[in-house]
């Protein structure tokens, strides 16, 4: 939405006037710098959104705009439609934005983006987890900066676990299966997840990739062709299939994470994998019936240990932007320590900066931050490629068939591998 607060204009005018009179010559020139408009494409809150779009750090934001002689205008869209809007815009060569949100689509849109992240200040980069650029780096160049630490972790209902005799959350695949089984009774289920949409990060295929990594497998080999048609790939899928008797049968129809979240928050399921944002939702009495009973833990380990996937919510700059430097400065503002702190305290989205994560105030408000940090010590590859959408649809559909008992895990993996090979080969 375009926020045309007159307050902001007044502030800007006032600061410009003040700067012009109070400062010596060259600084005054700075303040009267060309006023530029930056267009930012972002998700709608409560999905991760920047200051001005979401309600936090508004004063700092106003000040930044004034100091940098820029007006920032937001175009916000519901998360499921972001990709399509960007795709259409880029395809027709008329993308009007300077900065866009990206989530696993960086390889896909690579040719429209600038590898600005190589130029970020060292102090900032050092404060970020080293692997946070993994999903936005292509051919050695960094195209985006992740702004929130978002990994899948285990969320569970403490009370239900205790009642079933479990003092601790499950730490291994076997424990997960046993625990889920024990929790499935009285119309409740041990596990719930959204298997309804095969595509994208947070889709069915991506959940399987979690288990794939926990089994020690990976998606692609050196040549870019799929290598998941292996014991690890099948074991991962088999694990999900084995969990199905204890999984809410509605899972196969839940297209969005919120459907699954609602089930857990209503007390009708005991465990699920979810993003850090769930902590806020779970603590809100208006949405959650299990306030105070929600807890979070590292995902149970498979044969090769625990693993997760990266939500990879990142900011990217478009190649077509006329304000490359200003855009980069805006992103640096979004990553500013104070702004990051307000981000988690006010909206619940974890910061990405290590220093802010270690801040006691932050840790108090978001106890799951420690869990996410712990999870980050294990692999969390999202296997993002230029064909990510197409690949996840192909793989996710096969996974769905196996989950419904229409195919064996081995058959599904074999078919998925065939489909992905065709996709990769087509790209050439």
């Amino acid at each position, binding site marked *: 939405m*375009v926020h045309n607060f007159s307050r902001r204009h007044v502030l800007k005018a006032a600061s410009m006037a003040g700067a012009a009179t109070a400062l010596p010559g060259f600084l005054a020139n700075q303040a009267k710098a060309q006023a530029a408009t930056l267009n930012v494409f972002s998700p709608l809150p409560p999905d991760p959104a920047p200051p001005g779009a979401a309600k936090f750090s508004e004063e700092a934001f106003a000040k930044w705009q004034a100091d940098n002689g820029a007006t920032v205008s937001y175009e916000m869209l519901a998360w*499921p439609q972001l990709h*399509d809007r960007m795709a259409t815009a880029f395809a*027709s060569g008329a993308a009007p934005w300077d900065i866009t949100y990206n989530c696993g689509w960086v390889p896909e849109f690579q040719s429209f983006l600038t590898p600005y992240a190589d130029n970020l200040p060292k102090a900032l980069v050092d404060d970020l987890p080293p692997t946070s650029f993994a999903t936005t780096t292509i051919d050695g160049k960094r195209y985006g900066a992740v702004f929130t630490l978002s990994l899948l972790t285990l969320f569970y209902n403490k009370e239900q676990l205790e009642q079933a005799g479990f003092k601790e959350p499950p730490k291994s695949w076997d424990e997960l299966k046993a625990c889920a089984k024990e929790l499935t009774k009285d119309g409740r289920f041990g596990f719930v997840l959204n298997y309804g949409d095969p595509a994208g990060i947070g889709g069915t295929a991506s959940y399987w990739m979690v288990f794939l990594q926990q089994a020690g497998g990976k998606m692609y080999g050196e040549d870019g062709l799929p290598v998941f048609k292996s014991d690890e790939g099948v074991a991962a899928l088999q694990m999900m299939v084995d969990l199905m008797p204890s999984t809410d049968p509605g899972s196969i129809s839940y297209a969005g994470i919120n459907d699954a979240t*609602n089930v857990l928050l209503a007390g009708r399921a005991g465990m699920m994998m979810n993003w850090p944002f769930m902590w806020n939702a779970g603590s809100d009495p208006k949405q959650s019936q299990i306030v105070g009973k929600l807890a979070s833990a590292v995902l149970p380990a498979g044969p090769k240990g625990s693993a997760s996937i990266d939500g990879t919510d990142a900011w990217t700059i478009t190649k077509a932007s006329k304000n490359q430097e200003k855009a980069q400065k805006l992103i640096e503002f979004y990553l500013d320590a104070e702004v990051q702190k307000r981000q988690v305290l006010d909206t619940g989205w974890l910061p990405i900066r290590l220093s802010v994560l270690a801040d006691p105030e932050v840790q108090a408000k978001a106890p799951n931050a420690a869990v996410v940090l712990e999870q980050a010590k294990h692999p969390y590859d999202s296997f993002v490629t230029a064909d990510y959408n197409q690949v996840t649809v192909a793989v996710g559909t096969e996974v769905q068939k196996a989950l419904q008992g229409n195919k064996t895990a081995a058959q599904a993996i074999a078919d998925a591998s065939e489909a992905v090979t065709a996709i990769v080969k087509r790209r050439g």
Partner: protein
Amino acid sequence: MSFARLQHGGPLRQTFIGLGLALFVLWSAAPVLWLVLSSLLEQKALIAQPPDLSFANFTFENFSTVIGAAAALGRGIVNSLIVALFSTALALALGAPAAYALARLSVPRADAISFLILATQMLPGIAIAIPLFIVISRLGLIDNVLSLGIVYLSFNLPIVIWILRGFFLGIPAGIEKAAAIDGAGTFATFWHIVLPISLPPLSAAAVFAFVEAWNEFFFALILTRQQAQTVPLVIANFAGQYQTVFGQMMAAAVISVAPVILLAVLFRNQIIRGFADGMMKG
């Protein structure tokens, strides 16, 4: 058996008809009723199993949140209004003369042209979406309610022509002859004589075009950004979030469909009669 008895049927048949009507009412009204009820219930009432309909749970909170939180809904309604009115007006202005010509004036191969016009309805929107987007963005008309209204002509115009042509085909030929005797030219005949008697199908076509434009989702998704967002997009935004407060979603839906339903109900007689006359001769 008297003729009247044949028409009305005996008590057995009447019972069946009564049951049938009751079933029809249930089938049609129940979902809409639930739409309205849900919009007035609190979240915790809605996520109870079964939904808790006790009086205490009813609230206007959903409506106030939806209206207050999103300036988007208000703007969406204004945009939808402009787009729909504009598109309808254009469709009528262009379509009525065309339909008249195809029906009454000797246009060569009129049947083929009419069928071709209907054929344009068969194109899935997706096929023309990207080329349209390219053209419109090159013209700098993206996110513009008027250009959206013109794009909507792509489906409104054919339908208007189809409806009106059907009606015009049914007008007795004598009318033009009488007008010609009085010295009226083609346009005068059309304007002063044919149009006034076409009010029912005209209003039917108008309401139809308006409703279609108001409800359209796909092109609005592609061709608008922020300024020209229409109501269906706002609804879709509600349904796409991380968390869903079902009551709010339903409240937004109610607000979005209410104007159109009102319109349709008010004009139902014209619509029904317009179709009766218009579609028969199609």
